[in-house]
C-alpha cells in the first residue's frame, strides 16, 4: 500500500522518462469504462433472468369456463318422454250384440287409452309433491324407430278366472310353445270367461293404470346408500367358501358357470349399455371365522311351524317330496344349531384371511359369498328371527350360509353343488344384486305379477325373470341423473378449489377435460333418447372426475414467508454484497471524476483512487494487485538508488503484465 501514501518523498523525485507507478497502474488496470461494464454486467444478468425466472416458477392457470359451469348448476336434468305402444288381441274385447256398431280394436284401445291417461294424470295431480306424466300412449308403432315399451291385452286360457287382472311382463321364451308376444311386453291377461264381464273395461283401466304407475314412474328411483356409486366397470366375484375342508365333508366343486348363465346373465345382459361386468369365481377350502358361533337350542319362534304344517299337509296327501321336506324341517327345528348373532354378522366376512377377489382391477367389486360351515359348526344359522340365511353388506356384497344336509352320506364325503342346489342361493344373490346396483324390482305386489310358465305342464317359476326394457329405462334415468348431478358437483368443486387454492395448477389437459364435460352436459336434451342422454352424462362424469383427479392438479406446497427467506438468503446474500458494493464504488468514482473534470485535481489523488478501487475489484483484479505490489517493491529499491536494476525490474513487470493480458 506504500504507493497510496502521499507523504512519500521519493515519489515526487522520480524522473520523467521512466513511467511513474501511477502510469503503470493506469496501464495495468482496465479502463474505467471497461470496469464499469464488468461491474454492471452482473446486475444486468439478474435483470435479464427475471422474466425467465418468472416464466419458470409461475403456475400455469388456464381459465376455466366458469360462467358455463355456473349456468349448468341451475339446469334441470332433461326428462325424455317415452312412448308406450298399446295393442290387443282382437278377441280380447266382447263382441257387440248384433245390431250394434262393431268398432276396430284400435278405436276401442284409443278410448281405453284416454281413460288411462286421464286416470294417471288425476293421480299425479293429487300426489304431493306434484308429479308429471312423462309418457304418451301410442297405438301404431313407428317402423323405423320402434318403441321398447309395449302393452298387450291378451286373451289367455290359463289366466286367473277371477278379477282383478294380473298383469305380468313377458319373459324371454324359447322352444315350440311360445306365445308370440315380444319379450318385455307388459301383458294384461284376460280369461275368455272374463270377456263377457260388464266391468271388463274398468278392470282393464285399473290394471293398466296400476302397472304403468309401477313400471314407468314419474321420477326415476333414488340411488340408496347401500348401492354402489355409478362406475362403468363392475367386477362380480363369486366365492364358494368352505370353513374347513381338511376335516372332510366339504363342497368340492360347483356348477358355477351354469348357475351364472341361468340366474345372472339374464339380469346382466340387458344392462350392457350401462355397466360392463367382469365375472370371476373361486373356491376357498379354508375360510376360518374370527368369532365362534354359539351353540344353542332353537327357540320356539325360530322354528317356522307354518312351513312344517304346510309340508305335513302335503305329506298327508301322499306327496313324497313334501314328506321328505317335512322330515327335514322337523329335524331341523329340533336340532341344536350354531347361531350367528347380528353383531357377529358385521364381522362375519374375514377380509383379512379370505382372499375374496383377484384384486386385478381398480373397479368396484361385488362379492357373493356362499359359505359352507364345517361339520362341527352345522347347522349354522342366523340368530335373527324370521330371516333368510343370508345378509347383505352395503356396497360390498352378500353372504349366504348353506348347510349341507344333516344326513350326510358318509363322514368324509365331498359334495358337488349342482345348479339345482345352487338355485336357492342364486335366487338370493339375484335379489342382492338388485339392491347393490339399485336396480328397480319388477314385481310389485298387486300390480306386476310373476309371468305364467311357458308350458301349462310346468309349475310357475319363483325365480326372478331377466331385466325388462321398463327397468332398463328406469336405470338409465336414475343413473343418468346421478351422473349428471355428480358431474356438475365436481365441476363446481373444481371451480371453487381453483379460486380458493392459488397454488393449484390448471394445465391444458385439465381444461380440455372440463370443457369436454361441460359440453356433454350441455348436449343433454329432451329430444334425444334416454340412452343418448345417459351416455352423455356418463362421459361427462368420467371427464369431470378425470379432471378433478388429474395428477397435475396437485396444488403446489404452501411455504410460509420465513421459509422462503430461509431458502433464498443463504443463496443470494453472499453474491449480492460484492455486487452492490461494486456498484456503489463505481457511483462514487463517477462522481469524483465528474468533480475532477470540473476543477483539475492533482494526478496523485486520481491515481490513488484508481489503485484503491482496483484493489476492490475482487478476483479479476487480484493478479493486477500482485503486479502493483511488485511495483511498490521496485519503488522501495528506487529509494536505495539502484536505478538500472529498477529499469529491468519494470521491464520484467511489463512483460508479466502482457502475459497476464494474454
Amino acid at each position, binding site marked *: 500500500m506504500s504507493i497510496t501514501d502521499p507523504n512519500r518523498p521519493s515519489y515526487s523525485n522520480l524522473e520523467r522518462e521512466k513511467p511513474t507507478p501511477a502510469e503503470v497502474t493506469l496501464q495495468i488496470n482496465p479502463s474505467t469504462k471497461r470496469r464499469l461494464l464488468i461491474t454492471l454486467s452482473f446486475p444486468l444478468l439478474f435483470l435479464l433472468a427475471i422474466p425467465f425466472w418468472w416464466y419458470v416458477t409461475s403456475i400455469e392457470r388456464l381459465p376455466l369456463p366458469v360462467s358455463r359451469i355456473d349456468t349448468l348448476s341451475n339446469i334441470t336434468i332433461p326428462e325424455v318422454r317415452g312412448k308406450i305402444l298399446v295393442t290387443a288381441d282382437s278377441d280380447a274385447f266382447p263382441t257387440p250384440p248384433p245390431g250394434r256398431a262393431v268398432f276396430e280394436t284400435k278405436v276401442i284401445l284409443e278410448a281405453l287409452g284416454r281413460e288411462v291417461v286421464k286416470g294417471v294424470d288425476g293421480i299425479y295431480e293429487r300426489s304431493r309433491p306434484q308429479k308429471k306424466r312423462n309418457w304418451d300412449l301410442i297405438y301404431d308403432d313407428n317402423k323405423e324407430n320402434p318403441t321398447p315399451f309395449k302393452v298387450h291385452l291378451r286373451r289367455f286360457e290359463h289366466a286367473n278366472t277371477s278379477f282383478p287382472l294380473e298383469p305380468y311382463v313377458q319373459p324371454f321364451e324359447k322352444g315350440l310353445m311360445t306365445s308370440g308376444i315380444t319379450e318385455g311386453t307388459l301383458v294384461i291377461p284376460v280369461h275368455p270367461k272374463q270377456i263377457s264381464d260388464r266391468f271388463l273395461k274398468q278392470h282393464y283401466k285399473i290394471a293398466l293404470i296400476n302397472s304403468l304407475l309401477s313400471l314407468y314412474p314419474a321420477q326415476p328411483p333414488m340411488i340408496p346408500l347401500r348401492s354402489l356409486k355409478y362406475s362403468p366397470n363392475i367386477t362380480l366375484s363369486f366365492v364358494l367358501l368352505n370353513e374347513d375342508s381338511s376335516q372332510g365333508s366339504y363342497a368340492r366343486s360347483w356348477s358355477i358357470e351354469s348357475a351364472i348363465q341361468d340366474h345372472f346373465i339374464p339380469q346382466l345382459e340387458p344392462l350392457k349399455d350401462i355397466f360392463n361386468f367382469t365375472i370371476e369365481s373361486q373356491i376357498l377350502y379354508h375360510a376360518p371365522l374370527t368369532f365362534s358361533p354359539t351353540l344353542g337350542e332353537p327357540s320356539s319362534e325360530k322354528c317356522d311351524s307354518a312351513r312344517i304344517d304346510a309340508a305335513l299337509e302335503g305329506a298327508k296327501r301322499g306327496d313324497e317330496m313334501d314328506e321328505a321336506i317335512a322330515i327335514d324341517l322337523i329335524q331341523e327345528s329340533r336340532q341344536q344349531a350354531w347361531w350367528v348373532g347380528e353383531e357377529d354378522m358385521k364381522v362375519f*366376512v374375514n377380509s383379512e384371511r379370505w382372499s375374496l377377489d383377484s384384486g386385478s382391477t381398480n373397479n368396484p367389486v361385488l362379492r357373493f359369498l356362499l359359505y359352507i360351515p364345517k361339520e362341527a359348526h352345522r347347522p349354522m344359522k342366523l340368530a335373527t328371527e*324370521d330371516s333368510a340365511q343370508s345378509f347383505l353388506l352395503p356396497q360390498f356384497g352378500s353372504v349366504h350360509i348353506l348347510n349341507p344336509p344333516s344326513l350326510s352320506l358318509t363322514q368324509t364325503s365331498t359334495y358337488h353343488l349342482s345348479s339345482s*342346489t345352487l338355485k336357492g342361493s342364486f335366487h338370493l344373490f339375484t335379489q342382492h344384486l338388485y*339392491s347393490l346396483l339399485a336396480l328397480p324390482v319388477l314385481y310389485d305386489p298387486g300390480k306386476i305379477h310373476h309371468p305364467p310358465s311357458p308350458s301349462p305342464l310346468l309349475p310357475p317359476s319363483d325365480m326372478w325373470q331377466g331385466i325388462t326394457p321398463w327397468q332398463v329405462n328406469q336405470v338409465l334415468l336414475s343413473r343418468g341423473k346421478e351422473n349428471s348431478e355428480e358431474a356438475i358437483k365436481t365441476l363446481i368443486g373444481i371451480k371453487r378449489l381453483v379460486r380458493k387454492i392459488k397454488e393449484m395448477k390448471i394445465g391444458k389437459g385439465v381444461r380440455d377435460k372440463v370443457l369436454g364435460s361441460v359440453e356433454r352436459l350441455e348436449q343433454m336434451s329432451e329430444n334425444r333418447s334416454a340412452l343418448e342422454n345417459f351416455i352423455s352424462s356418463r362421459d361427462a362424469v368420467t371427464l369431470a372426475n378425470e379432471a378433478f383427479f388429474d395428477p397435475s392438479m396437485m396444488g403446489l406446497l404452501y411455504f410460509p414467508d420465513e421459509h422462503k427467506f430461509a431458502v433464498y438468503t443463504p443463496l443470494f446474500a453472499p453474491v449480492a454484497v460484492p455486487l452492490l458494493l461494486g456498484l456503489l464504488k463505481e457511483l462514487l468514482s463517477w462522481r469524483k471524476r465528474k468533480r475532477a473534470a470540473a476543477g483539475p485535481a492533482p494526478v496523485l489523488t486520481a491515481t490513488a483512487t484508481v489503485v484503491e478501487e482496483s484493489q476492490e475489484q475482487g478476483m479479476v483484479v487480484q493478479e493486477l494487485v500482485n503486479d502493483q505490489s511488485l511495483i511498490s517493491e521496485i519503488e522501495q529499491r528506487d529509494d536505495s538508488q539502484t536505478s538500472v536494476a529498477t529499469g529491468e525490474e519494470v521491464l520484467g513487470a511489463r512483460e508479466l503484465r502482457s502475459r497476464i493480458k494474454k
Partner: protein
Amino acid sequence: MLFRYLYSLLGVLLAVPLCIASSNIGSRPQLESRVSDLFSNSTDAGGHTNNWAVLVCSSRYWFNYRHMANTLAMYRTLKRLGLPDSNIILMLADDVACNSRNSFPASVYANKGKEMDLYGQGIQVDYRGYEVTVESFLRLLTGRHDHTVPRSKRLLSDSSSNVFVYMTGHGGNEFLKFQDNEEVSAYDVADAVEQMWEKRRYNKLLFAIDTCQANTMYSKFYSPEIISTGSSALGENSYSHHNDMDIGVAVIDSFTHYILQYLETLGKTSKETLKDFFGIYDPSKIHSHPGISTSLSTSPPEDILVTDFFGAVAKIEISPKSSELPISSHASYSTQWEESPNTARNRDDLDKEREEPSSSSSFSSGESTFGGNGNVWKSPLSVDNHMKRVFGTLGGLSGIGLFAYFASRN
C-alpha cells in the same frame, strides 16, 4: 321495577345486532349461495356405510422406533375392532422391524414387557420407506394418483365413508417433518382435506396427530365435518411414554399410549362416544396439553360413536324370510345334494393329488377360477413321457449303429 326495565333494555340491545346480522345475511347473495352450497354438498346427511383409516408415521431411523410403534399399534387396534386391511392405508417411513439394530428381528413392540408383537403376521404396509413423502401423502388424500397406482395404495372413500387420519412424527409450529428432508404444513393438509370435501370423499373426518406442537397442525382446517385432536399445544413437546431396556429406545409416545389404552377397553359393539374418548385425556399423565377441535363438525362429539371411526362395517341388512325360495323348490333338503363325482378321495388322496399335479384340476373350470394351486398350470413331464424319450433315443442310436455296421460291411 328498575330491573325489569334493565332486562327489556338488554333484550332490545341484543335484538338490534341480531337484526342487523340477519339482514346482512339476507342481503348478501354470496354468503347465501355459499351456505346453500354447503348444504347441497352433503348428499347423504349423517349416513355412513364404511370406514377408512390413513395411518402415517413420517419419521425415519432407529431412534424414532416409537413412531413406527405408535402407528403399528394403532393399526392393530383398528384391525382388532374389525376394520379390514383394504380400508387401512398404512404409511411407514422406515422399517424398524428389519433394522440391524433391532435385537428382536422382524418384530416391533409398543410396550416394555414385549407382550404383543405388532409386526408379526398379517400386516399390510401400503407405503413404506422412501415412498412416504409429502407428495404421496397429499396425493393419497386428494386421490390424484397416476393411473398405475394399485388399489391398495388408494383411499377409495366416498360421501358415505368416515375417515380417520392419524399422523405421528417430528413436528413444529404448523408443520410435520417427513423423512428427513421435507415437511408438510398445516396449510397443505387443510387444503388437501378441503379438496376431499369438494369431491365428497368423506362423510366425517377424525384427525389425530401425535407430535410436538401438534395442535397447530389442525389449526388451519376450514372444511366442514372435521373433528381433530392433537397431543400437545403450541410450544410444547410431545413426550415418549417409556423405554424398553432390551430394545434400547423409547417404544411409544404418551398421547398414543393413553389413547390405545382406552381403545383396548372397547369392543366391536361398544356404544362409547367421542366425548368419552376425549374424556380420558389427562395432561398430567401425558405431560402436554392435548387439544380437541370440534368447531367444524355439525354433530357434537357426544353424538358420534367411537366405533363410527374405529369400527368395522356400519350396518348389514338381513334378508327377510320371504326372499328365500319357497319350500317346494328349496334346495336345503338332503335329496338334492350331490356327492362330488370323485367322492372316493379322502384326505390322503388329496395329499397325493397335491404331490402329483398332473392329475385333474380341482377347480370347477379352469377359465373362471383363479388363486389356489399354481402347480396345476405348469405340470412337469410325467414319467411315461420321459421313458418314451429315452427309448426313442436308444432306438435311434441303435438304428444308426446298425446302419453304420452294415455300411462298413459292404
